[in-house]
């Protein structure tokens, strides 16, 4: 819940409400990816993200 509040506050401050549907879809599908694969190791050589 703490995270959802932070996310909402963040979008309000940044005025980036257009990100909301992307975030919802991402979290939904992302949760599927994560909980079915189990691995969350950054694949990058360069830690830009």
């Amino acid at each position, binding site marked *: 819940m*703490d*995270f959802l509040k*932070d*996310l909402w506050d*963040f979008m309000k401050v*940044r005025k*980036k409400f257009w*990100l909301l549907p*992307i*975030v919802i879809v*991402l*979290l939904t599908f*992302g*949760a599927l*990816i*994560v909980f079915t*694969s189990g*691995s*969350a*190791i*950054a*694949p*990058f*050589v*360069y*830690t*830009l*993200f």
Partner: protein
Amino acid sequence: MPISILGISAFYHDSAAVLLQDGVIIAAAHEERFSRVKHDDKFPTHAVAYVLSEAGLSVSDLSAIAFYDKPLLKFERLLETYHAFAPQGLKSFLAAMPVWIKEKLFMKKMLWDEFGKIESGELSRKPPLLFPEHHLSHAASAFYPSPFDEAAILTIDGVGEWATTTIGKGVGKEISILREMPFPHSIGLLYSAFTYFLGFKVNSGEYKLMGLAPYGNPDGEAVPRYRQLILEHLVDLRDDGSVVLNMAYFDYATGMKMCHNQKWQVLFGLRKRESESELSQEYMDLALAIQQVTEEMVLRLAKTAREITGCKNLVMAGGVALNCVANGKLLRAGIFDKIWIQPAAGDAGGALGAAFAAHHIWHDQERTVNPNGDDAMRGSYLGPEFSDLTVQRLCRKHQAPARYFADFGELAANAAQLLSSGQIVGWCQGRMEWGPRALGARSILGDPRHPEMQKRLNLKIKYREGFRPFAPSVLAEDAGLYFELDTPSPYMLLVAPVLESRRTTPPAGYHSLAMYDRLYHLRSDLPAITHVDYSARIQTVHQQTNPRYWQLIKAFKELTGCGLVVNTSFNVRGEPIVCSPEDAYQCFMRTEMDYLVLGNYLFCKGEQPKWHEGGNWRERYELD
């Protein structure tokens, strides 16, 4: 109760922790020194435990904890970047998301879980958790500990959240960010792309590129041609120093590598260099070209900073501020009266800046500058130290004979004698350095006059590439006798020319000679620290901040007339700099180092028992 703030950088590269009390740095350390994993990016458990122990605090006692960037803002950048480049980058997007959805989006929880582990259970109190922006953390790390009450602030790195470069102004306790250059246009990432193309590792090999650049032929046709190609095709460099990269040539925004190899190969007529393969002249020329372009960018940014802030002094941080060749040129350009650079200018230093930002901005605390003109870094000796008892235990554990000197002056004289006879001495004294450079607390030392010293140190001690240069540590008061440098450089962040009077005449066609012919040509009466372009990366040693190291170099000078020594970090290639006496003894025994000084003890290699170690220790360190 003092205001105690813990600063943290983690989860990208170079994790670190810093403890600040009432605006004074109590301790600062990189996690890699404890975990023994170079550029360790994990939560800095050991470093946090160490810095807290220096003040006898627990996490619950802290006034605030400051993390060095804003994860949600970084996530915004990630989403917008993928959105902008779509449908490109789908593969990288799918690979990046699990890390974010499982971990990084829930940074607060992740941090509290880690703090809970340090406290071995639930925290009795959760201090406020703050997230200053990445470049504000860099700016704060540059300005607050600097010796200036007012200064222009320049931060340049790969990328933080959105910003890749900022120009700001600091006055008293206030910092204002005045200009910002956003991702994907980045000087740091441009330099890293060349690091990658030249076969070095991104985020660690940038130093090698800088060391390779002087081997480029400044008189040849290739360097200006490469420069022109860079400025025509890869980057649009504006008058104010801002850059617009031609993203058709770069892959880092949404891909898995830095650049599009094929396009670069066509552009430069050069194959991407394979790691560890031979370095031909073309690669050296390309390294010089990008180094020159980077210097031009830094100079233009500095001019802009001067114009828009009106300040006489400049402070810098961010990974590009570790480019000491560019820093030296900036100093000599005279745009600013004085320049001060945070010794941990890379991401580790963000921990320090975050803590300072929390103190002066969030806690609204006044800032006072040292009236004697010194900075607040105390020589950057901010890490753990060890006692004679620890060394005695080490001697017992390894059955290692060592000679104890009650009088440090006698030990310094002995060590100086050994150095002057061409011996290589490991030197481990007092508190460990903060920042990527060894500054005489965890260093390997040699005689700079010795013609074979550079070769021997690279190949027999450090086990690293033969072309890499070594730096001098010079008595601060004697720097002008050897180098064209009239300002202190205590953190080895300035490169300056060796005095003309000390140089030898180069042979005809010097720049056209093969790399190793140039390298082994005796360029001055200090061949081990004179790079092929007659420059040196200088550390000025000050009696006030490191009296023992100063005393050793003084003893060396009394013996030889030479007031400087070769100083390289106490490690082998791929290994973090040693932290404890145990790390130092291990490194001493694994390499062909001749002597080791640990506190007041002197170890002679010839007297040590045979070193036994299971497996090949070199395989434990990934080459950097």
